[in-house]
């Protein structure tokens, strides 16, 4: 109750925001507002406790991480090898590639595998309209025989269509638990002969911890090409440049296997 009426006194001194108050000379303020210095120091302490971040000790953090971090297998052993065992919780992994390079197929395959095999809930944010439930179901059918299992797995995948940044932010705000995030991105080049780099510019490029580039293998004109090369472009744990080959056929993204006729992607 001591603090009521302070706002008007402070505004006369141009102290509008918490930052202004906390960085001002309290002795000066005490004099000009005829308030006790001790009371102001107490207010400052409360404001700082409420609005500043609290430091954690490394040992405590390590203990917490040991029990809460998980490495989620993507269901594709060769991709897991590229990612050093799988997708790490607490990190953003970026999948980049030209249109048709297989990004959405890989995402669907990972969603199917995690929902079915790891029994995890998956939130699929679709901004391209590329998500089709029937394709996901097709992949689940290839991975499990039992229809009930397939339907349960379908239920664990939640799809949200987002068409602007604000919708996406809102969808993300609703999640609070620790999770692993995977995003897809387009590619661009600096010049016609330059190396491929992710779109969205330099400011975005710092955000993901891991980046995988998807490219089509050399096409043969006889059959539909479902093979893709995945190479590691950025990683906090492994040397870059490692490559594996994936097949984005009807059963979902898999390691390279004899090509089977697809029923249409």
């Amino acid at each position, binding site marked *: 109750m001591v603090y009521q009426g302070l706002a008007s006194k402070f505004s006369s001194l141009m102290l509008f925001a*918490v*930052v202004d108050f*906390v*960085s001002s000379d309290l002795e000066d303020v005490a004099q000009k507002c005829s308030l006790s210095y001790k009371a102001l120091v107490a207010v400052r302490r409360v*404001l*700082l*406790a409420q*609005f*500043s*971040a*609290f*430091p*954690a*000790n*490394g*040992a405590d*953090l*390590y*203990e917490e*991480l040991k029990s809460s*971090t998980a490495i989620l297998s993507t269901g594709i052993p060769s991709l897991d090898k590229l990612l050093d065992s799988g997708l790490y919780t607490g990190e953003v992994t970026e999948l980049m590639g030209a249109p048709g390079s297989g990004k959405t197929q890989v995402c669907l395959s990972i969603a199917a595998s995690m929902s079915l095999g790891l029994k995890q809930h998956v939130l699929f944010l679709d901004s391209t309209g590329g998500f089709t439930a029937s394709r996901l179901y097709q992949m689940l059918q290839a991975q499990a025989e039992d229809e009930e299992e397939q339907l349960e797995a379908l239920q664990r995948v939640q799809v949200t269509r987002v068409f602007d940044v604000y919708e996406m932010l809102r969808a993300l705000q609703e999640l609070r638990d620790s999770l692993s995030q995977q995003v897809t991105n387009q590619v661009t080049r600096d010049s016609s002969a330059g190396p491929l780099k992710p779109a969205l510019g*330099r*400011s975005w*490029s*710092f955000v993901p*911890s891991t980046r995988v580039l998807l490219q089509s293998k050399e096409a043969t004109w006889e059959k539909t090409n479902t093979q893709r090369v995945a190479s590691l472009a*950025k990683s*906090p*744990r492994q040397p*870059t440049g490692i490559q594996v080959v994936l097949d984005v056929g009807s059963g979902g993204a898999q390691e390279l296997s004899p090509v089977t006729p697809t029923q249409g992607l």
Partner: protein
Amino acid sequence: LAAGFGRAELLARLEGRSSLKNLEPYLFAEEGFPVHGDVVEFHGPEGTGKTEMLYHLIARCILPKSGGGLEVEVMFIDTDYHFDMLRLVTILEHRLAQSTEEMIKQCLGKLFLVNCNSSTQLLLTLYSLENMFCTHPSLCLLVLDSISAFYWIDRSNGGESFNLQEMNLKKCAEFLEKLVREYHLALFATTQTIMQKSTSSAESSFSLKLQHETDTDYRPYLCKSWQQMVTHRIFFSKQSNSGNSKAFSVISCHIQKKHVVKRSFSIAECGVQF
């Protein structure tokens, strides 16, 4: 003085903070650095080893003297949310002759981590951290990864006024300078290369000379208060020739003495190796 006040703490404070001179000699153009009061900026595009180098320095600080460390405490302010504890633990395990869980935890006990999600929160956090520097005399190293994280957000929040856009970072820089000076710390901060190399002749003569000599992709964009307090600027880049076994390089500049030096390093499972 309160009776509960540790005599050892008092002595430590009177003796001053430990020397950081042998932290990593390869990183500096001159011998005998960093000293207390130094502000070192790591600048470079992504994937060039800045955060790895920070792990290397942190390991050097928190390892016990028997393990080749300096046994000092480190405060790590993370605005990028990229800090990888498991990676740091891997590096510590490689460097300790006998690494047990107990020893790892003892080392990690000397590290303090705090996350900030805006420049306002960063400023307020710095104010409340002042108390920690007061009560922890063995806290000599302050790391900020990165100081440029909120650049675009601040610019968009500041509206039309350039002053308003820079205000938070300016206050942070000024307060950091106060902390470094009063508590005899060394500050290491990373900045990202988010701007293209400038071709305008309006740049200061120093940065032009530097670019010409060392071909660094550097264009200063943070506020003047920060530019002026940096004592060492270290540019990180990936080596272009793939035949070289050392994939990364640093160009280290002592700002005042204008002394520049270039060194190469590689990153292995055990961390940075010069």
